[in-house]
């Protein structure tokens, strides 16, 4: 029993540690400008003004659209490419496999900040600067290694005898993949999608360097440009409200996919 208690306390500590700052921001977002700095955890005067403000500014709504669009497209492409690459890596023995894995690891380790200036110049020259593709491309680059790694770990858990069995049962290579492998790989694909989406959604570095207008500015960047309702107003409340709003899509995204992540989906496939 004491062991259980210890673990329980530890868990509680971690949860508190993680959630207090979030709750603090939520609390700030409901406070009026006057009471912002009163130090109370629970607002004395509740207000929805901050939320009204951010949705009245074009800036924020536009940035939200950009963020959702860019993150979804990047996620989709990275997951599709990553699935194919990971399938090949875990399934086939082809020349240069080690190299491919190594290079993708290298990309993941590459300090992103060192790429910002060259990317800025390249995108200015090619006309990608301050466009959606201008952000989607680097996001895919950095999300792919992540996708390949998580996905190949999942693919490796799927017994390949299943694919052979499907072929013997009369399936083509395509059918074997679609009807047998894909359903089993789904949890891995969804997990990867969540990770990639969060990566793209949260990026600030590329977003601030490779955009200049509302046309492709994402929410994290837009937040930093926030000024509040008038130029002289303290924007803390509005920023907090915006921060709360932008965590909602992530929560929805995770909840939506989590239902599909059934652990131990492959159990019972092989042996006794």
């Amino acid at each position, binding site marked *: 029993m004491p062991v259980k208690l210890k673990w329980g306390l530890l868990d509680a500590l971690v949860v508190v540690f993680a959630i207090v700052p979030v709750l603090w921001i939520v609390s700030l977002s409901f406070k009026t400008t006057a009471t912002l700095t009163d130090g109370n955890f629970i607002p004395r005067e509740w207000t929805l003004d901050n939320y009204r403000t951010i949705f009245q500014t074009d800036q924020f709504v536009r940035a939200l659209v950009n963020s959702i669009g860019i993150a979804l497209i990047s996620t989709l492409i990275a997951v599709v490419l990553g699935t194919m690459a990971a399938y090949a890596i875990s399934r086939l023995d082809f020349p240069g496999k080690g190299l491919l894995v190594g290079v993708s690891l290298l990309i993941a380790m590459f300090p992103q900040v060192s790429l910002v200036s060259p990317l800025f110049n390249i995108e200015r020259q090619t006309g990608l600067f301050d466009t959606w593709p201008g952000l989607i491309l680097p996001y895919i680059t950095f999300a792919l290694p992540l996708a390949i790694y998580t996905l190949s770990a999942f693919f490796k858990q799927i017994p390949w005898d299943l694919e052979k*069995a499907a072929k013997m049962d009369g399936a083509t290579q395509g059918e074997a993949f679609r009807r047998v492998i894909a359903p089993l790989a789904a949890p891995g694909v969804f997990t990867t999608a969540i990770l990639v989406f969060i990566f793209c959604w949260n990026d600030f570095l590329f977003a601030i360097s490779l955009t200049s207008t509302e046309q492709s500015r994402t929410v994290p960047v837009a937040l930093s440009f926030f000024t509040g309702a008038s130029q002289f107003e303290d924007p803390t409340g509005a920023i907090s409200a915006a921060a709360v709003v932008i965590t909602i899509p992530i929560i929805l995204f995770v909840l939506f996919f989590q239902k599909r992540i059934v652990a131990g989906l*492959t159990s019972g496939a*092989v042996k006794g």
Partner: protein
Amino acid sequence: MADIVLDKVTKSYPDGTIAVHGIDLEIADGEFIILVGPSGCGKSTTLNMIAGLEDITTGELRIGGERVNDKAPKDRDIAMVFQSYALYPNMTVRDNMGFPLKLAKLPKAEIDKKVGEAAKVLELTDYLDRKPANLSGGQRQRVAMGRAIVRNPKAFLMDEPLSNLDAKLRVQMRTQVSRLQKQLGTTTVYVTHDQTEAMTLGDRVVVMRAGHIQQVGDPQTLYDKPVNLFVAGFIGSPSMNFLPATVFPGGLHTPIGDLPIPVKDNAPKDLVLGIRPEHFEDARLVEEALRPRGFEFTLPVDLVESMGSDKYVYFTVEGGKSDLASADLADLAADAGGADLPDQSGLVTRLSAESRVREGADARIWLNLDKIHLFDPSDGRNLTLD
């Protein structure tokens, strides 16, 4: 249903391993044939080539008279049972068994009917709506069999289908597999590394070693007339005893005494003598008429195992082991992993249950000279055939 012919089939893997060396094999329609051999001898590779899961490097494979080298597995109309069962974990037993029929685009009603029939034969009716994860090992094995039999294929291929079951279940399933095959009359190629399974199941047994076929024959022939040292040692449990023997005018000099038997002139001077355990007997129990056909010797008894029906009696022979050097014996020893390897310094004998031999005491043992085998240690050839 169809016959399967392998015509000089060779498989070399991309890494240069030659797993199968030009094997010739004709499997008749409806036959139950067993591929047996130690691990790594190329059994699975051969089976996978028949299945179409591995390309054939050279040679030709014909099923029902038609060359199928370049046909995809799905176009060969063959079903396979995997060692790992390879059940689809996300599907129920019903869907697992119905999967081949669904792929063949059969109408739903017919699929249900066929799955129902197969489930009845395999006693799986109560489990049709369960997922594989909620089945016991034996049930999973039966689902794997069910998936193979539902669609009435030209042939069954089975790769060590019982090796993941515990010993008791394995014996039960062995009988069931055998009965099923007789009932369906479908050509079956069955891979195993267990010689007991091979002997009890097959119409014919193919003994393989390092990518070569050693001998093909019905179980009794393999047992009575092994073509070489390897087959002799591999088939039979407990395995054949091997002792070094040297030719001298008038007979054979061996660690258990000088055997008065004629040896062919062209035989090498040093030989390997092979005797199966049941060809020994307690000398006191041998009928008078038989006595002159054998040879008697005395050795101290190491161990007696009484099986009820008979007794296994173990002896140690002085000067047995070191003189025996043969590639065949080395392979056998490697396969047995040292456990019940054909122990060259020991003798395993099977005596009648009435025998009164006791551990520690000397025993007088009779050996049937009509049943001994002599092998050439250089190539393992059996010199006593024909």
